[in-house]
């Protein structure tokens, strides 16, 4: 052929190729023989060893579960703990007639329809060779009776397990969250994070709250045991064991006594309370009312309980403290005042009129004061103390939204505080850009998106587009109280390593300092203190104080009142009544606690929210309790550590 003629030296080249083909062939045969040798080694010489490992479908490598880390309050009282109990587990693969077996087991121990329903649900989520629990939390008598009968039921096991328990139920649910069974979604997530190995044999995982956020700390590290089994699959002896590393202990900044007092002060009312230690950013109490029992969720909530929680109009499952967005009402005024001072829109002690209503130039619309007769004239401190609306309408109008927004953003309003809980709401600190974005949808027209001059007026008194979470308000109050030291509020203050007892502190120092003048902090604080003194809106609650207290009342409108109409609580449905707000800190000189309280649909700030804050401060700073709640408080045992052995998990 033509190509052949072009070859330089066909014979040499061909010989070289044959030689190379031979080398390649011999090499490949040799490597395949190496594989054969490996197979002979595994399948002939090591056959006995591997056959034992695989024999009778027994598991030769057993994961040993670590104990989940405890969660304790700042005094060491256990809020989430583990206890050992027995479960009855069935492995569908090893059982011929599942229904008959369950029926027969029902003769030995009681099995309720709820147990059966839960069993069916777990069964559908797991693979056939995985053990599925039928009965949970059996007592010693039931476990013993079953153990004596187990020979009749192949594929049925009684296992000792550690259970999670939240002893204070509703009191801690919005803080701790809960753990639940690992479902298909969690399995996928674990696989994506390459954590499957560490969860082999694990049944539960943190789903909500601190249990979810600190999952990696709480779960610990799997151990494992290599077990030799006989032909019946029974463990003969343990060949090797690597102990698990138990989960780390979380110590909260939260004080469960304070949390309990706050809860009882709320009683049956709806709302939220967040108390922060201004010196550290630690969250002393975080309450959202109403609440729910987290223990219900651990092993799958029954549909009836779920229905009643989920369809309750009071929304007990929503964490109002971090997700509830409310207009701040007049509690916004101290921050607004701070912004005005910093922007130079007003000077301290500059006296201005505070009339009964405010109108924009060239408009007849009346922005009314909550006090129809007005407050005469006032400086900024007095305007805070008497909560003059017209004073702040004017301030906001003078400043304009472009100057208000960046200064208030410094307090963390309108952005997530960074608390160690998932699902925090952002809230709204309005700006021109925000409005354009908010009304960008095709349903809106350009005039909806444009910033109108009047928009800024009601923002000055915490109405209008403003909405914040109680946590944001508490956080901003704490910043004001400690002269601008900013922390990310955190529930956990210390993580103790289970292996070596070493501790890790959560944010020990502030992450930034707000760039405001000290004399402005002092001036605003003076105004907030005056709220609690005669002439201030909270003067009744300032009586008989054993320490100094600064506060601000607020009332957040839920529905708009028509021009010329009067707010009449009695005429409105309960859900449409105003929310009662209060922010406060104490002692003024050296603040130890800052708080934001909102009571939904309870009217004026001074009547519902403020008394809660006052009683809470009394308890926290002096130990004094109101008589009517003393009898309702829970009793908290001192911390009982130890008493947990990994061996029960097997």
């Amino acid at each position: 052929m033509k190509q052949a003629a072009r070859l330089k030296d066909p014979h040499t080249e061909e010989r070289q190729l044959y030689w190379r083909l031979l080398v390649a062939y011999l090499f490949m045969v040799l490597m395949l023989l190496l594989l054969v040798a490996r197979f002979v080694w595994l399948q002939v010489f090591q056959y006995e060893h591997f056959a034992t490992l695989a024999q009778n479908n027994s598991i030769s490598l057993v994961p040993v579960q670590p104990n989940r880390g405890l969660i304790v309050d700042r005094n060491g009282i256990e809020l989430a703990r583990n206890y050992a109990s027995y479960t009855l587990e069935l492995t569908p693969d090893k059982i011929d007639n599942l229904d008959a077996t369950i029926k027969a087991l029902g003769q030995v121990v009681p099995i309720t329809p709820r147990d059966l329903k839960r069993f069916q649900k777990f069964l559908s989520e797991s693979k056939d060779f995985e053990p599925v629990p039928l009965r949970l939390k059996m007592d010693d008598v039931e476990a013993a009776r079953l153990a004596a009968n187990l020979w009749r039921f192949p594929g049925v096991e009684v296992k000792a397990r550690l259970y999670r328990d939240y002893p204070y139920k509703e009191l801690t649910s919005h803080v701790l969250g809960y753990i639940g069974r690992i479902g298909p979604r969690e399995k996928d997530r674990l696989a994506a994070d390459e954590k499957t190995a560490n969860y082999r044999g694990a049944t539960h995982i943190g789903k909500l709250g601190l249990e979810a956020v600190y999952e990696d700390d709480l779960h610990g590290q799997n151990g494992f045991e290599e077990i030799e089994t006989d032909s019946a699959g029974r463990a003969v002896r343990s060949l090797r064991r690597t102990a698990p590393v138990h989960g780390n202990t979380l110590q909260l900044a939260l004080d469960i006594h304070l949390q309990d007092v706050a809860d009882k002060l709320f009683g049956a009312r709806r709302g939220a309370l967040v108390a922060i230690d201004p010196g550290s950013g630690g969250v002393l109490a975080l309450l959202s009312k109403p609440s729910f029992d987290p223990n219900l969720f651990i092993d799958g909530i029954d549909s009836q309980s779920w229905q009643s929680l989920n369809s309750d109009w009071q929304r007990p499952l929503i964490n109002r403290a971090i997700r509830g967005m409310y207009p701040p009402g007049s509690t916004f005024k101290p921050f607004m005042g701070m912004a005005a001072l910093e922007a130079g829109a007003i000077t301290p002690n500059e006296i201005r009129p505070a009339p009964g209503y405010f109108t924009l130039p060239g408009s007849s619309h009346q922005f009314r004061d909550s006090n129809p007769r007005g407050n005469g004239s006032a400086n900024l401190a007095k305007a805070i103390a008497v909560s003059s609306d017209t004073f702040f309408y004017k301030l906001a109008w003078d400043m304009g939204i472009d100057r208000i927004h960046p200064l208030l953003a410094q307090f963390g309003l309108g952005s997530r505080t960074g608390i160690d809980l998932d699902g925090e709401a952002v809230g709204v600190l309005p700006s021109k850009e925000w409005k354009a974005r908010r009304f960008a949808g095709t349903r809106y027209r350009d005039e909806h998106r444009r910033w109108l001059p009047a928009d800024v007026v009601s923002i000055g008194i915490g109405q209008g587009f403003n909405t914040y979470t109680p946590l944001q308000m508490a956080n901003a109050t704490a910043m004001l109280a400690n002269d601008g030291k900013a922390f990310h509020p955190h529930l956990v203050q210390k993580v103790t390593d289970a292996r070596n007892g070493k501790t890790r502190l959560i944010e020990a120092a502030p992450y930034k300092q707000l760039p405001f003048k000290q004399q402005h902090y002092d001036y605003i604080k003076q105004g907030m203190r005056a709220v609690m003194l005669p002439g201030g809106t909270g003067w009744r609650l300032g009586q008989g104080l054993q320490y100094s207290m600064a506060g601000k009342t607020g009332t957040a409108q839920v529905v708009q009142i028509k021009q010329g109409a009067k707010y009449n609580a009695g005429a409105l449905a309960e859900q449409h009544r105003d929310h009662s707000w209060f922010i406060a800190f104490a002692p003024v000189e050296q603040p130890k606690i800052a708080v934001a309280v909102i009571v939904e649909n309870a009217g004026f700030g001074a009547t519902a929210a403020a008394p809660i804050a006052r009683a809470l401060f009394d308890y926290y700073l002096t130990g004094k309790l109101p008589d009517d709640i003393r009898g309702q408080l829970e009793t908290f045992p001192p911390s009982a550590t130890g008493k947990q052995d990994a061996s029960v998990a097997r």
Partner: protein
Amino acid sequence: MQVSLAKRLTRAIMDPLDGWLLALLAGVFVLSMIALFSASNQSWAKIDNKLVYTALSLLIMWLLARLSPQTVMHLALPLYVAGVLLLVGVELFGITVNGSTRWLNVGIARIQPSEIMKIALPMMLAWYFQKYETTLNWRHYVVAAVLIVIPGLLILKQPDLGTATLVMGAGFFALFFAGLSWKIIIGGGVAFLASLPVVWNLMHDYQRKRVLTLIDPMEDPLGAGYHIIQSMIAIGSGGVWGKGWLAGSQTHLDYIPERTTDFIFAVYSEEFGLAGNLLLLALYLGIISRCLLITARAPTLYGRLLAGAITLSFFVYVFVNMGMVAGILPVVGVPLPFMSYGGTATVSLAIGLGMLMGIGKLQRR
């Protein structure tokens, strides 16, 4: 009349194909169906799927076998250039999954350009050496090395060590048959061994973990070592004659990971034992032998280099997969040719073997 028509039709279909290779492949196919049925927990859906893509692969093989290698050769340069451009595209706009960027969205579908390179690179090199066949000198080997290293580095950067090794390996095989000096091969081997500590430092954590796990699977028996331990238990407990079809406890209790794809050999080995392994190895050895024979008889340099590179790549797939499942090589994602479930891998193997049959057809004329 009827009979002769049927006969002619059969001949028309069978003529481009290589009878020996087809028979050996049919043997592997039968074993793979048996293993897949067991590994998939008797899923007819997977069997149906496999039938569909096997038929598709056969069609592609037949089409390529019919084409003259001289025609296909003209695709070498455009295919190579397109492959490199797509790899650059992956680097710039690729889709990242589990920390590595291997996929590219081209509108209709996601493609993995490194797969194209597995065949494009040896084709390119074979074409290049044939073009300069009469004037061959050391400079051409340098150019060839650059042609190998460009896609190699691009794939390494994704990072995908397994595929990079396979692609560069295919290129190296072409170089080897093109007569690369033994001195360079041995010198390169020594340099490679010497550079291992450097490579170790460049490796990602997950790659190091795989190597360490290989040395001692018990280091991390519930994590990285779990797959290897479980597949070794499956193979070892199969013994000489195996546990019997559908009776492998390791398989059916879900201890074997990826058991229809990368680890299907563990399933097969548990149920059919050493005897089954030897049968499968014999079939693979037969395929390799036949392919090398075709290589030896190929009339053009292009044909020899491409056929040789395809053959050795095929062997590497077999060896690396079985070595991994048997615990003597690290876990890399290499399927077992024609055994593992998966259309993409099967089609790309069929493309290689189809070209090889086309080369084989040429000598008989």
